[in-house]
């Protein structure tokens, strides 16, 4: 996978190939755009498959809108093609937090990870979870963070669901950025606490500890 900001914008270039979707650069009425195409999964019955891909496309678009309304930066949606299960959105030129973090010294983590925490707290306060909070799904553009990939997001205010979001962040930091994970997580938690308020932060974090004690969500590296 290439970081979107590092390479120049070339229409037709495949940015990413996942289990579910291809992400391709393109042009939308003269604007640099990203096409997220949910490909058919041929092992599923065609009619079922088509319906699931359509629903997920609609759902992801709804979740992006909801996040934007909550004050979280997300790509602008240009177009939905439900026939082709394709979402066309603004191209975010920037660096994935994952790649930034790869070159960070411990002292540099405060800014971006504090903001990361604030953004996630905003999503949670708006009654949603992101569902796939890895550092590959957040892009830093001109010093602010843009959240991507709402394919697994849903509306929920359950403590457990919000703690699951934090769990994945923690796993990603420890697994992919071990050198800075402690400092990054500290900054993340402080940002989260600043937006969510101390009581809510404490409750989510204690739920996170419960999840960890249950031994579920164990990472396989």
């Amino acid at each position, binding site marked *: 996978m290439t970081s979107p900001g590092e390479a120049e914008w070339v229409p037709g270039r495949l940015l990413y190939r996942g*289990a579910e979707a291809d992400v391709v650069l393109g042009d939308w009425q003269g604007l640099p755009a990203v096409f997220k195409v949910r490909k058919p*999964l*041929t*092992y599923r019955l065609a009619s079922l498959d088509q319906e699931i891909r359509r629903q997920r496309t609609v759902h992801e678009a709804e979740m992006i809108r909801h996040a934007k309304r909550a004050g979280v930066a997300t790509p602008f949606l240009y177009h939905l093609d439900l026939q082709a299960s394709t979402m066309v959105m603004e191209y975010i030129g920037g660096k994935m937090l994952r790649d930034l973090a790869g070159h960070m010294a411990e002292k540099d983590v405060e800014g971006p990870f504090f903001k990361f925490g604030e953004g996630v707290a905003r999503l949670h306060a708006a009654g949603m979870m992101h569902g*796939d909070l890895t550092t590959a799904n957040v892009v830093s553009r001109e010093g602010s963070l843009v959240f991507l990939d709402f394919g697994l997001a849903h509306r929920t205010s359950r403590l457990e669901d919000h703690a699951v979001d934090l769990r994945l962040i923690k796993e990603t930091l420890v697994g992919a950025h071990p050198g800075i994970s402690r400092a990054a997580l500290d900054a993340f938690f402080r940002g989260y606490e600043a937006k969510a308020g101390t009581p809510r932060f404490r409750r989510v974090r204690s739920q996170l500890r419960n999840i960890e004690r249950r*031994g579920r969500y164990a*990472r*396989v590296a």
Partner: protein
Amino acid sequence: MKSIVIGVESTAHTFSASVVSSDGEILSNPKSVYKAPPGGGIHPFEASQNHLAAAPSVLSEALRSSGVGLSDLSAVAYAMGPGLGPCLRVGAVAARTLAASIGVPLVPVNHAVGHIELGCLLTGAKDPVVLLVSGGHTMIIAYSGLRWRILGESLDLTLGQLLDQFGRHHGLASPCGRAIEESASRSNHYLRLPYSVKGNDVSFSGLLTASKSLLDAGASFEDVAYSLQETSFSMVAEVTERALAFTGKKEVMIVGGVAANKRLSQMMSAMAERHAAKALSVPLEYSGDCGAQIAWTGVLAHGSGIEVPVAESTVRQSWRLDVVDIPWRG
């Protein structure tokens, strides 16, 4: 040196004993399966009565047909859990008695680990993503850092429970997997049912309710059985695919009673192909609960020095797979 272990399985509806050698030869594997009354589920106490009555003959058959004498045994393995309390206790008592009387170590085995390790033995899988689907489990598993780790699972019913409860609603006797597969193969008329994947997990309760309602509303059993299979198997294949993409492993193995379903293994093969991974299925005879899974894992555990003093050889009704150390893969 070659060692020989007898293993006793009695976690749920099956009582089985098997003799396996350390070079992976299964010398015997007789079983007795408790059959629930039509329309009814497994009753733990009645199942345990079945096991109690069957234990002596199953054990002596396991020894007799293996051609191995008591003095050739190096250890007795038993399924310590997870499972139904009354059933587990029958197997534990039988194993304890046998081990004490011949003076060999007693080896505790986790039933789910047993499914996986026997699967690896029989399919030749080295480092697979495992889909464990049975009456007791629905989990996506992979090995990392001394343990089999759970990457995804059902948040409510297991796939086996989904099929059984659906079949029983129609008056079938559980386990109903085979009857449902047979009926499903006679339809290709898909009725829309709820598809619920949440991240790496699945949920089947809404699907069960909707399927029962369709039957109650007069839909044909074949059509609903077909639609239920297509929906639930697709969900399971999707989360297995996520695990495969995430771990980058190159083998997918299906184990557990539902692994016997041909449509499921066909779907898994098609999924694996997308990732240039190999799809492996355990042969029918060994996909469901059996003594061989306990005996073979007993061989591995015994080789790593795992045993339990008779005084501490209790049963563990809920014993999670991901807390069990697997030193033989370390």
